[in-house]
């Protein structure tokens, strides 16, 4: 198992490598079929042009319920205080495809968005701020999904 320190070191190195090689996609955040079809959190972020592992940040906020009475509709709000963010991304780790939404942070809007997503089961949910230089900073929260009564 890696320590956080090691992970951080490695991701920084990886970021430097990718950026250095000029591989950072120009329009990584235009509609991105590969990212939305990726199974894992990691692959989805990679397809969005993120290099290295995401890092937890107190400057990213995810508002979500502790328990969702029904996984069909789970309300989320994402916001950030970080500068130079180009997108806020919503990911549900255990959904068949982790990526749920990508909000572009333009100069004309506040970096603060809300929507509702389906959740197949109890899972960690991530709000990820993707910076202009391809770094990912995140907040996460576990949301429990309960089933309804009567078996139907």
């Amino acid at each position: 198992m890696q320590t956080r320190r090691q992970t951080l070191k490695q991701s920084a190195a990886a970021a430097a490598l990718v950026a250095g090689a000029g591989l950072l996609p120009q329009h990584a955040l235009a509609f991105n079929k590969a990212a939305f079809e990726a199974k894992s959190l990691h692959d989805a972020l990679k397809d969005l042009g993120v290099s290295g592992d995401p890092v937890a940040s107190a400057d990213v906020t995810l508002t979500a319920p502790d328990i969702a009475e029904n996984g069909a509709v789970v309300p989320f709000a994402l916001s950030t205080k970080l500068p130079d963010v180009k997108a806020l991304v919503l990911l549900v780790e255990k959904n068949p495809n982790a990526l749920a939404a990508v909000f572009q942070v333009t100069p004309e809007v506040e970096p603060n968005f809300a929507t509702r997503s389906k959740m197949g089961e109890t899972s960690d949910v991530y709000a990820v701020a993707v910076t202009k230089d391809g770094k990912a900073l995140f907040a996460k929260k576990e949301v429990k999904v309960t089933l309804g009564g009567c078996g139907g």
Partner: protein
Amino acid sequence: MKAHQLALAAAALGLMATTVAWAQKSTTEAIDEYREMLQDGNPAELFEMKGEDLWKKARGPKNASLEKCDLGLGAGVTRGAFVQLPRYFPDTHQVQDLESRLVTCMSTLQGIDPKEVVNGQWGKGERANVTALATWVAAQSKGMTFDLPQSSPQERIAYEMGKRAFYQRGGSHDFSCATCHGEDGKRIRLQDLPNLTKNPGDGVGFAAWPAYRVSNGQMWTMQHRLNDCYRQQRFPEPTYGSAVTIALGVYMGVNAKGAKSAVPAIKR
């Protein structure tokens, strides 16, 4: 180190009984929080918009709108009509609820065949139109209190028949409406069950439908709510607008007297 872990484990065990009780309470609180988060931005508003449009638009073989429809308070009066339904209508000689009355208006004013609704499917065709219309009409009474008339003998008899239907058990599981909705403070799984033999409070029970169901993204009227209750009761299907659905509406609606209408609500 080991001793320390053991002490922690023992402490955890000691706390078990209280944690269980606490976890249960906090589950309920968390679910209340979830419900609260859904209140703003209820997709029922989409159905309200569609219903208002359907009310005002000329439609059907007679190419007429529903603006002359009498929902009990005079032709075209929508505000306040919902909190007094079901009620007796002299023109049809029947006690009618909101949906069955809308079907009557669609038939008489627009020439639309009631069969299209009665034999239709939920969420499709004219039955979906009645749902949207009912959502819009009901929303015109938001915040008003339920006060169903009981002045005519028909309405009083409907109440008594509704009460009997409410308590009548049957099907493979011996369930009636009262099995789940006859007492205060009961739950099925984690769902609170309103006591419908009396006023269960503002915005719950009869005073909450039509409501948007998040589980399937559908708008449900009271007709749809009753239909699915009977399905889960293992009863046969109640016919749309049939006498038993109206009688139950009168029984629950009269019991809900004084409850504030929260319609259209958003529900699990």
